[in-house]
Structure formats: C-alpha cells, structure tokens
C-alpha cells in the first residue's frame, strides 16, 4: 500500500486580483508518507491546500486522485474523495458544542435527526487520540485559542481521510501537544494515509516528515523530494531564495535596581489564578511559559481589566492601579497588548492594511480638526510593511486577504508603531516564517534594549529561550517557578519541563 501515489497535481495556477498565488505548482503525495509543505509567508501554501480541498477552484493545472483526473468543486467533494484538512485559520461554529463541531462534516444521524448521544463517543475518541481532555458538550466559543486548534485537528481526524492536510496545526500548540500530534501523524502514516504538514518550525518538520515540497512565490522550487537529502540551511535557502544569514543580537543588560514597571503581587483572579507574583523591569523581557490552557492569556487579560482581579495588588510604575479596560491600560499606563487571537481581536479583516497598522498612531498623526494626512499614514504603514517584509499587493488591500503569517505581522506591526511604556505580547510569532520570526525577535530584542519592558507569552520554548531574561512557568493558573534564562536551549527546556512535571508529580 505504501508508495502508491494518492494525490498528484501538476502546474496548478490560482490567481487573485493582483497576485498569482499559485503559479505552476506540482505536488505528489504518496501513501504512508508525511509530506512537508514549506515556504515563506505568502508563498502559497494555504492557497494550495485550499485548491486541493475544493475551496478555491484552480485557474489552471491538473489534479489526479489515484491516477484519475478529478475536479474538486466543493469542500464536500474533497471530503468524499478522501481528503481531510485542518485549515490555518480556526473555523469552528462558535455556538456549537465541541462534539458537534467535530462531527460537523458528517453528523451521526438517523432519518435526518441528529443523534447527540452518538456524537459524543467519536468526538471523545478523536480528542483522546490527541490526548486532550475536553468536555464534548462545551460550546467552542468558551475554549481558548489552542484548545480550539485541537478541536480543529480532532475534527479532521473524524473524517478518516486517506490524505490529511494540516496547515500549521502546531502554530499555537506547546511542545507537549505537538508531540502528541506527531504520534497521531505517525500512526496515520503507518496506516497508509498521507499527511501533509505545513509548519514554520523546521525542527518539527525534520522530526516528523519524510518528503518535502518547497514553494516560493507560488512556484514549487522543490518538488516532493526526500527530506533526508536536505539540510536545514538548504531548505531555508530554497524558501528564501538566498542563504540565510543569522545575525548575532547585540547584547542587552537589565538594570535590576530600577523600579519594576509592572508588578503583580499575590494576585488572584475570578478566572481561578491564585497567588500570582511577577515583576517586569524596564528593558527586561519576562517570558511567561506554560502548556495550553495554563491560564497565561487569561492572566494578562485580567490585568488589563477584561476579567476581575479578586485579590492581591497590581502596581504599574510603582503605584497600585485598578485597570478596568484595555483602553485605559493603553492610554493611562501605556500598556500595549498584542493578542494571541489575531482573527477576532487582532486584525480588522475587512479593512485595508494601512488602517490596520496605523490605528495606534492616528492620535499622533492628527493635525487640526483631527485631519490625518493620507500620505503620512501610508508612509508609516509602508515603513513597517517593508521592515517586516509583509507581503501585500498594496496598502489598500484588505487584511483578510493576506496569508496567515502576514496577518500576524500586521497585528504586531501596529504595536511597533505605537509608543507604549509596557508591551504584553501573546504568541507573537504564531505562523510566522523563519526569516520574519528572526526579524521579529530582533525587533522585540531591540525594543527591550531601548528600555521597553516586555512581558512575553509564548508556547514556543525556543523563542522563550532566545528572548527572555527570566522565564516564569505557569500551570493550572498557578506559578510553578521562575528560572533565570542562560540561553542554552537544552538545559533550559529540561528545567522548564521539570517544573511542569513537578506539578504532575504533586498531583498524582
């Protein structure tokens, strides 16, 4: 069984107004393999996946399934053919339960009546396969971003497809969940399915994949080649189109005597946090690490007034504060918050990029009568677009038309443009490609070097180790410990994992 070509495409073309998103892409998926699909942000990976699953109809090229040419006119046809998918953006029905979302494509039913009982078992099974423990009756709107991502994956598992396309499934997962997912992927491959894996984390790619296709500007520059033949740098070179030179970041020191900009002193929240103490000093990057659902995002949301603080004290610039809204946080205390939920809270999908980026600086640009010069505005936006390498057809393009990674860049760009005194960054590099991630890191680093205190939440341990001065580890809404970062990935990750496991030890 292994080795037969399941799905093959040649010369695929997909055109959007202003861009050729796919410009002659070839791909061959064989049974029993895990296939990496790589490329920079905006290279066309998601578009390719959408074409393969009948979301977009191709403007040219051929698609064959088991040797026969097929036309996939709708997602339903693709599912019926045997192609399952997890799209890059989370696509769940907010009001439906976890179980119903998982079984949405093919709900267990009896004479047209949905069978809710019969829904639970397969949903729980799919979740269990991923090692997730979620109440299947909970509406998904109540889940955290990462939990929703897991539900998405469970939903794809439910369809039991021959070809499973995963578009950045691990972007908001922590290593533990990722590892479980890999086990599932390997199991599927062993069963004779083909899994396509899109990720910007090359370590992951090398860990789980055996063949690779690299896209650049909508063209496949490397087609279905064994991954073992290539090195990290090869691949990056292919993606970027040149050698990838890593620059050293300039050293940075933290003045430990300065008054901390943000202090949490034994804070507890209505969300269930207890005894949270934390300090962030000027020029310091404090990492807040934890597994999915540990309550990190919730904690900062509580600090920003989106949830109630029930005990302890929050001090900003030395004085105790009571923040009631993110806006107050921004305007009175200069706290900027880059949300992890870019689709709902980060970008304005139906608005032009220029507005998305400059929203935080209009106040500064405004002249008499609140007049904002369109040119200055464009200059600011263009500057950031260039600096972050955001791939756009024009500043007037709607943010919703950008590739996922580019949206993430837009979401961060507006905070880089703003003048804040404290920046809280939640999962900044989700879905961002290698090169830009590097650029992001440099930016964050330099912001701190210039004296900005930064609280960084990330599930990407490598990122933590690269950037943070101290790593605070949180599980289950409690702080388990604090580690001084010595920038040695292996040592640090070991210590962090141990801290997390201590909790488990305590528990059992």
């Amino acid at each position: 069984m292994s080795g037969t070509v399941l799905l093959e495409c040649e010369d695929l073309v997909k055109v959007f107004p202003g861009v050729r998103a796919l410009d002659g892409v070839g791909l061959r998926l064989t049974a029993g393999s895990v296939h990496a699909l790589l490329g920079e942000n905006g290279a066309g990976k998601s578009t390719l996946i959408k074409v393969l699953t009948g979301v977009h109809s191709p403007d040219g090229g051929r698609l064959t399934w088991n040797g026969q040419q097929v036309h996939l006119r709708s997602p339903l046809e693709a599912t019926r053919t045997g192609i399952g998918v997890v799209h890059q953006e989370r696509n769940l029905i907010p009001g439906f339960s976890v179980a119903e979302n998982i079984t949405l494509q093919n709900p267990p039913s009896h004479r047209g009546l949905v069978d809710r009982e019969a829904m639970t078992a397969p949903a729980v099974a799919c979740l269990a396969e991923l090692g997730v423990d979620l109440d299947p009756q909970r509406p998904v709107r109540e889940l955290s971003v990462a939990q929703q991502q897991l539900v998405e994956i469970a939903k794809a598992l439910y369809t039991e497809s021959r070809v499973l396309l995963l578009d950045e499934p691990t972007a908001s997962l922590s290593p533990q969940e990722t590892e479980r997912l890999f086990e599932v992927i390997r199991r599927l491959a062993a069963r004779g399915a083909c899994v396509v894996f899109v990720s910007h984390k090359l370590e992951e790619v090398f860990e789980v994949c055996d063949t690779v296709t690299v896209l650049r500007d909508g063209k496949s520059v490397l087609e279905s080649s064994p991954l073992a033949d290539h090195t990290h740098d090869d691949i990056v070179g292919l993606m970027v189109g040149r050698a990838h030179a890593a620059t050293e970041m300039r050293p940075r020191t933290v003045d430990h005597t300065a008054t901390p900009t943000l202090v949490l002193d034994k804070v507890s929240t209505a969300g269930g946090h207890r005894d949270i103490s934390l300090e962030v000093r000027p020029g310091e990057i404090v990492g807040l690490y934890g597994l999915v659902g540990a309550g990190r995002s919730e904690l900062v949301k509580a600090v920003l007034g989106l949830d109630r603080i029930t005990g302890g004290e929050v001090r900003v610039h030395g004085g105790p504060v009571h923040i009631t809204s993110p806006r107050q946080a921004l305007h009175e205390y200069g706290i900027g918050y880059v949300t992890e939920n870019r689709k709902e809270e980060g970008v304005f999908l139906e608005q032009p990029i220029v507005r998305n980026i400059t929203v935080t600086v209009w106040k500064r640009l405004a002249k008499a009568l609140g007049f904002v010069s369109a040119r200055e505005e464009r200059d600011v936006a263009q500057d950031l677009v260039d600096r972050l390498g955001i791939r756009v057809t024009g500043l007037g393009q709607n943010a919703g038309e950008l590739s996922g990674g580019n949206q993430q860049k837009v979401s961060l760009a507006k905070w880089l443009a703003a003048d804040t005194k404290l920046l809280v960054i939640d999962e900044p590099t989700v879905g961002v490609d290698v090169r830009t991630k590097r650029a992001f890191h440099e930016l964050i680093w330099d912001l701190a070097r210039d004296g900005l205190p930064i609280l960084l939440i990330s599930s990407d341990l490598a990122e933590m180790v690269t950037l943070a001065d101290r790593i605070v580890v949180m599980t289950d809404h409690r702080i388990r410990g604090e580690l001084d970062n010595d920038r040695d990935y292996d040592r640090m990750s070991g210590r962090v994992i141990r801290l997390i496991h201590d909790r488990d030890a305590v528990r059992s």
Partner: protein
Amino acid sequence: MTTSISPPDTVPEEKTATHRMPFWVNQRLGLLALVIALSVLFGVLRPAFLDQQLVLFPLLRDIATLTVVALAQMVALSVGHMNLAVGRMAAFGAMFAGLGYDRLGVPMQVGLLMCLAAGAAIGAVTGWLIARTGVSSFVVTLAMDFALLGLVSLMYSSLTDDAAFTTHPTGIDALRSYSLADICAGPICGSPAVPQIAQFTVLAMLALGFLYGCTRIGRELLLTGANPAAAELSGIPTGRRVLLAHTLSGLLAALAGFMAAAGTGTFRASIGDDFMLPSFLGAVLGGTLLTGGVVSVLGTLLGTALVGVIRKGLDLLGVGLESLNIYLGCVLLLALSADRIRAVVSYRKVVRST
C-alpha cells in the same frame, strides 16, 4: 528601534508599487452609470423627464432630503449599529424648529439650530444608552422610536390644534421653492433644476466625506464598526465613538426632518414617518455595509438617486398604483443585477490581467 532588515529580495517589484483595482471596478461608478442610463432611458421615453422646473427640481429636492436621511443611517451603520428611530428623530428635531417659529418667533436659522441641537441631543442619549449598557442598538433605537413617537404626538396635540406648527418664518418658503437660478442670475451659477435646499445635503456630504475620509475620528468610527473587540484592544475609545455616531445620526436625522418640513410646508408630527426604509435603502445600495466598517458618502447619494429616478420615471410613464410598485421592485432588481454582472466581469478582467 535600530534594527534594519534588508528588504526581502524575493518579493517581486510590484509589491511596493501599490497595486490598485482599476477605477472601473468601483461600485460607485456602476451606480452612477445606472443612474445616468436610467435617466437617459426615461428622457428618451418621456422628454418631459428633462423638464427642469417640473420634474428635475422636485426630483432633486426629494433626493436631497432622502440622502440626508440615508446619511443619518449610514453614520449609525458605520459603527455596526442601526438607527431605527431615524424618522422619529427627524420629527423630534423638526418639532423644536416648529416650536421655535410658532411660539418663540425665532428667525429661521435659530430654529434650524434648535432642531439640530434637539436631534443631536436625542441621538446622544441613544448612543449613551447603547454604549453604556451594551444592549443591541436595534432594541434601544426601537424603544427610542416608540418613546419619541409618543412624545412627539403628545407634544403636538397639546401645543397645537391640528397637530402641526404652521408658522412660516421668513426665508423658509424660499428654501422650499428656490433653485440656484433664483439665487443668482445667469447660466453660469445655476440651473433652475437644483433646489436651494440641496445646500444642506452638500454640506452634510462634505462634512461626512471629510470626517470619514480624512480624520482620525472617522477612521476610528469605521474600525469600531469593523471589529469592536479589536478596536477596543487597539486603544480606540469604542464607547465614545458609538456615542458620537449616534449623536451624528440624530443630528442628520433632525436636519432631514427640517428639510422635509421646509419642503412640504409645515412642521408636523408625521414628518419622518416614511424615513426608515429609504434610509437603509440609500445607504446599503450605495455600498455601506450593514455589518459596519465600510461607508460611502457619495454612494449613499447615488443609491438614493437611483431609487428616486426609477420612481420618477415610472410616474412620468403614467404607471398606476396597481403596477407602480411591481415595476419599481423589478427595475431595481434588474438594474442591480446588471451592475452585478459588470462587477463580476470587471473582477474577471483584473484576475486575467494578473
């Protein structure tokens, strides 16, 4: 921030040369073409359509008023809200003008200011309630509609005999019947087709065009409408923007009420009774999204004009009431479908040229 990242060399050149849709993809242009095409059609079928005094003047006067109504709705839609009380806010505003003229004998301009102030005030109350409570604008403005409906008719029945303020201040009759040709002589300055009352519409459009096109507040209004959560997290005072939008909506509604009153003769309670549907129709036809975040001031004018022209044309053709509405609906659908085809074709063209 001293980092410099070398511009990625893989990105094609056009990236910085901002790519824009060609002008003919624009929806406003489609509407304009439709309005012109229909005018020409009716003009050919009934040459009287181009009669400046008897046809165009009243048509434009109507369009002028309804455009302001639609703008009032557009402003509420811009923050993703609705104003179901447009008509009643118009009546409420107009009542104050009438009261001023009838009881206080104020000059026309003062009455107009009273009217606008009243409209803005009631809009502000509405906006404050919505922003403060977070209850759907639909419910709040609907309740406001009822409250004003009751209040306005109570006021009129207690203050007047036949439910109307009939005093005409000096100047208001000129507003009603003067065209550009009456204000200054000669063909250069104006045709008898353009009503003087349209000055308010032009002013409102210019002001809103400036607000939404050039200012910070306008942009913030739009973003509040596009995604309130993201707007709040981006530091936009969404509550204040909502308040502002409803205040403006009330103000414009009151202006429309004044224009309607000046256009028909007296200040009465039934002003604005029929404002609600045209207000949505004009705005939505013009390209304003019901979901918020996108407005078009010019589109609103064109949308209103389209409906006005169709109606006028059918009137001129002598279509009776038994067919009028049928034709009106059909022509509207056909015209829009034609525009839709144009949009699809032009989209294909852009795609092909890429």
